């Protein structure tokens, strides 16, 4: 009981340092909460159905269509609102998949060291050289179809290399600390030490990695969609940009079609980056030295 109480106050201190007194993180979380609410209440916020094609094509923004109408006669504002859903879910799900692999490989390579660690890091280094986007493109090209699940798996499973590296280097320095020796003396197993002892101590670095990976995943989804390799039946911000470009939105001067989705991607991505970087700064200050991803 007593131990539990102490831990609680410890975690409250961490919470206070990383969130309550961290303006950057608060701004970032504010933006994320805003977009999440938009995603959840999309049917309430959007004035029309995202796929409804009842309006005059290429109509500039008006009081009826806040962001105008696209070439198919669809309301752009409604599409931006509904697009939030796809972009956020792909970003977060792919980000989670990446994180699972990255955390596991990073912890294992850093803590186990020796042959296993060496081989794992060799693999990581080899794949780091191969251009990820080009790899994803040919994967997508050879897949029979590209649904949202494939999209999430491809993005998630190929983005973990940097994360594994970063977590490994943190784990390496953690593994030399006393509490790890203490855990070993108590007879804890490798996996138990990795996840119960080391992981909680590097949570700031892990979280920073996780949120940045989400940004990366959203950008990748946008790029794949733009290249025509996304799921054409989905309305995501990247897909909107892709359709606008293919339909010569530039020549029709349809800035109202190209600007909003891009700003949304950038702003949401920025909010995740803001959180991640502020966490890293605080963690680095604590440990006296720079921590880089």
């Amino acid at each position, binding site marked *: 009981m007593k131990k539990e109480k102490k831990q609680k106050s410890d975690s409250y201190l961490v919470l206070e340092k990383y969130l309550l007194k961290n303006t950057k993180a608060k701004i970032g979380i504010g933006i994320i909460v805003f977009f999440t609410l938009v995603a959840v209440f999309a049917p309430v916020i959007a004035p029309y159905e995202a796929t409804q094609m009842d309006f005059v094509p290429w109509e500039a923004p008006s009081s009826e269509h806040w962001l105008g109408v696209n070439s198919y006669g669809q309301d752009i504002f409604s599409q931006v609102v509904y697009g939030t859903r796809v972009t956020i879910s792909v970003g977060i799900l792919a980000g989670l998949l990446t994180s699972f692999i990255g955390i596991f490989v990073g912890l294992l390579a850093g803590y186990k060291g020796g042959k296993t660690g060496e081989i794992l890091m060799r693999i990581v280094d080899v794949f780091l050289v191969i251009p990820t986007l080009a790899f994803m493109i040919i994967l997508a090209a050879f897949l029979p179809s590209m649904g949202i699940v494939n999209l999430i798996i491809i993005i998630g499973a190929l983005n973990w290399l940097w994360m594994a590296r970063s977590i490994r280097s943190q784990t390496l320095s953690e593994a030399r600390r006393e509490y790890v020796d203490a855990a070993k003396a108590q007879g804890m197993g490798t996996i138990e030490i990795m996840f119960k002892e080391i992981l909680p101590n590097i949570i700031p670095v892990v979280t920073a990695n996780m949120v940045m990976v989400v940004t990366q995943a959203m950008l990748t989804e946008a790029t794949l969609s733009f290249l*025509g390799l996304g799921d054409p039946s989905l309305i995501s911000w990247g897909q909107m940009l892709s359709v606008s*470009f293919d339909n010569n939105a530039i020549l029709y001067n349809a800035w109202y079609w190209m600007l909003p989705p891009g700003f949304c991607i950038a702003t949401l991505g920025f909010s995740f980056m803001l959180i991640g970087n502020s966490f890293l700064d605080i963690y680095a200050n604590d440990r006296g030295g*720079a921590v880089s991803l």
Partner: protein
Amino acid sequence: MRGFSLKYVIKRFISAVFTLWIALTINFLLPRCMGGDPAEYLASQSAMGSLEYAELMKQQFGLDKSIFEQYILYLKELLHGNLGVSYMNFPTPVKDIILEAIPWTLLIVITSILISFALAWFLGTLSALKKGSFFDNAVVGTSFYIQSIPYFWVGMLIVMAFGYYLEWFPMGHAQDAAVTGGFLAQAGDIAYHAFLPVLSMVIVSLAGRMIMMRSNILQVFSEDYIVLAQAKGLKKGKILTKYALRNALLPSFTGLMLSLGQAVGGAIATELVFSYPGIGLTTMNAILSHDYPLIQGCFAIIAVSVVTLNFLADLIYPLIDPRVSLS
């Protein structure tokens, strides 16, 4: 050459060859694992009326043989520079199409990397020197925002602003067929067309590099020998040029190597926006027309170029920093 050991070169070379082998093996396995093995494409291709092509493919891939023999054949053909025959542009060899596209990609990728690094070093150093100032905060904040912008969107905005509204630059393509005349006129025309694609790639890649350079400088400034130099009463400018810059440049050189792959990825989307006839546009067109030999050829060539450039960078690195080959 100081600090340039044979062992280091051999080690890097083996690692490069190994990486390449992995990439090419993936390239071989992918179409065969995805349910659509070449035999299946053949069926669909010949249904489209090109029996001649089907016959050529069959010879090319040795489809009657076992997968292992196919693999050996594939590697052997690759070593001879034979990448197969394009379906889209039948009967042009894939190699010819790629050889035509690759210089354009190299032109915009290398130009944009060099410009972006030069600017990143300059702005990053300035930002670090004025840490905490309005300039520094503005630079860092903007960089974070730009890092979250997709490459292709910047390209679209730039086409719209400078190509469509202002009409200062062409909206796409690499050359104007109407421009003839001397070498200078043509080179000028090529530079004129490359300007916007390069600009858009510089903008996006600059952000991350600048943040990295800034933190490198800050890190170096906190080290003992800089503190000693300050204690000796050396001027700030002298400390910067004599000690700090050199040591801060080194890690960013590693960044240069690792960013090559990323830059190639960025180039694919950028080329699509600008209809720039490089390897990215070729890949995308190949995907649109299901030209599988060409898709594989493009990936092979991208892998070969990135690995080669990486290897070259590995060789140059110890010349700049002798400590590398010692470790």
